[in-house]
């Protein structure tokens, strides 16, 4: 197999909980260990899926990869360089999409595309913009302010903006969340294209069908730990991913917290 594009090794991340959060999470603990010793790799030309239930630690893991937060322990390497030591290198080579990253209401897709190109130190690539805008139907709304776009269109624009710099590594958190089936299909189709272009893609999801259809390799996270990690064929065999997941979940979940 070729060189891994993303290497996560023994990732650890804890959050200090406020009183309010303690109440919400119904725990007396002051600290939430969201990610506990997670290791996995993602290779060019594949889609790696992080599968896990709500609160399993998927988003936290992806945010560490995207250098928005720093791991407490372990390391992330992007294209062979440590992401904590070289955050700008990581950000330059990585496209991150998550529902918490929003675009400013006031601006139009055209403006934002140019703006984010500039933030990546690039001149706007008009051909690439046209291709992406057409692919996601943004071209007709290129001069409409984000505030006036529909939720789905905003999400598609966010996706396009996260890829202005044509990164080698693509990290998408729940990429089809909140999208209608047609839009969701456009997104998953495009992810397939990107994979064929040789991008290393990491997605997180709790949707079994999506993982089953899209991912080449799957890691199942339970409570911040990697409960299973292998290529889809080995993991699933002739059963459904859902059944496999529940088996693994019931074995891993009773572990101490």
């Amino acid at each position, binding site marked *: 197999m070729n060189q891994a594009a993303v290497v996560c090794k023994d990732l650890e991340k804890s959050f200090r909980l406020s009183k309010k959060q303690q109440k919400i999470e119904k725990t007396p603990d002051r600290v939430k260990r969201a990610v506990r010793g997670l290791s996995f790799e993602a290779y060019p030309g594949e889609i790696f899926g992080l599968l896990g239930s709500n609160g399993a630690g998927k988003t936290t893991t992806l945010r560490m990869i995207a250098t928005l937060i720093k791991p407490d322990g372990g390391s992330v390497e992007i294209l062979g360089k440590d992401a904590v030591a070289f955050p700008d290198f990581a950000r*330059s080579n990585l496209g*991150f999409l998550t529902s918490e*990253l929003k675009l400013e209401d006031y601006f139009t897709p055209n403006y934002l595309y140019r703006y984010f190109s500039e933030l990546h130190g690039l001149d706007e690539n008009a051909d690439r913009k046209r291709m992406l805008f057409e692919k996601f139907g943004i071209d007709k709304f290129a001069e409409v302010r984000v505030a006036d776009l529909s939720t789905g269109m905003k999400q598609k624009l966010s996706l396009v903006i996260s890829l202005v710099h044509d990164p080698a590594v693509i990290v998408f958190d729940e990429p089809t969340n909140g999208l209608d089936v047609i839009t969701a299909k456009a997104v998953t189709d495009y992810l397939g294209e990107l994979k064929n272009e040789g991008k290393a893609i990491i997605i997180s999801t709790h949707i079994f069908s999506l993982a089953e259809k899209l991912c080449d390799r799957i890691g199942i996270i339970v409570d911040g730990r990697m409960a299973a990690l292998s290529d889809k064929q080995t993991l699933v065999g002739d059963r459904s991913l859902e059944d496999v997941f529940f088996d693994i979940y019931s074995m891993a979940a009773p572990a101490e917290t």
Partner: protein
Amino acid sequence: MKKIAAIIKKDLKRYFNDPRILVSLFLPGIIIFVIYSIIGGIIGDMTDLSDEEYTVYTLNLPEPLASLFTPEGMNVHLVDAAERGLGDEAVLEEIHEGKVSVYVKFDENFKENLNLWLLGQLAQNSPTDGAQTPTDPSQTPADNTPQDPADEPSGQPTPAPAVPQVKIYYDSSDVGSLALYNVYASALDALEDGLSNLFDVNGGNETFDLAEVETAADIMSAFMPMIMIVFLWSGAMMISAESIAGEKERGTMATLLATPIQRSHIALAKAVSLSVPALISSMCSFAGLMLSLPGLMPGVTLAHYGFGEYAALFLLNAVTTVMFTVILTVVSTLSRSVKEASGYSSALMVGIMVVGMANSIAPETASPAAFLIPVFGAGRCYSQIMSLSFNPLSFAITIAASLFYIAVGVFALSRLFSNERVMFGK
């Protein structure tokens, strides 16, 4: 650099296309103008300066300067106190009683001393250090008016001979007297500037204002610095308070943080882009204040202040505004929501007002170190400049201290932007 420029350009585009923000930029200036004009109108109505006749006593008035003391629009009688055989005491008593408006007292031989002084300066070939020439024999006789010990030079370095002095006694509780004082002071100040500060107007620690009661104008000019500072703060607050807190809340900050741009560059870009509207707002407030001055302070026109004073006020305004912007941006960054940010900034405004108040209460002769105190230094500088007693040292300290606080603030901002608990804490 290009990335910093891109952020600034983007932010400014948004600010200057938002009608709400545009209104809030110009509003403080308009409010300040309207309020002060109303107050000024009330003060002005109490007396009409052009109707009355004013008596001004002079002593040793050089003939060529007489025209300076009979301003247009006011009916002024110049009377030579020596011709009347009146001593200082008697004249001051008449000012107290309101019979005489102002007493302008030049040194004996003012004109001759000034001439000799000037020649001495030319010979020394160093026009501003002239006060240090102990060999100039012409200086000593200038000061032998035995009946007035206050003639001693007091604002100058110790071994220096007497600087030619002009003293203007007035009563600020009398509108006519105050108006004439203001007119004379600015006229002489302009003249003095032209002569490289070769004589002093109301130098030393003597009391020249003989008023026994505070007038509305007094109170207003005492509080003017504080009001100015509060307007600068609220001008900066309009946008800065909610800036970063809003971006965090709306999730646009996270998007920016995911791009390859250094946190210190983001800090710099935000400080600049938030300062621009705050500066515009502060300049409007400043214009509003200056335009309302003539109505507010009798005898003061826009020409009361020279280019130097305006430049100093402008610089003070600009530096103070940027400092406020940076402080507010730090507060905004530390806040978890827009609501929290505006709460903190309003609370801080109370603190600003308290320090501003302290400025009008604190003793006249604050130590230079006091000018290191943020708002206090700026407030005191405003008072000094507006009363034409600009002090280069305190001004320099205030500006330098503010620039230092701005640098510290921008540094703090860049640290906060790299702090995930601040940026992403729940």
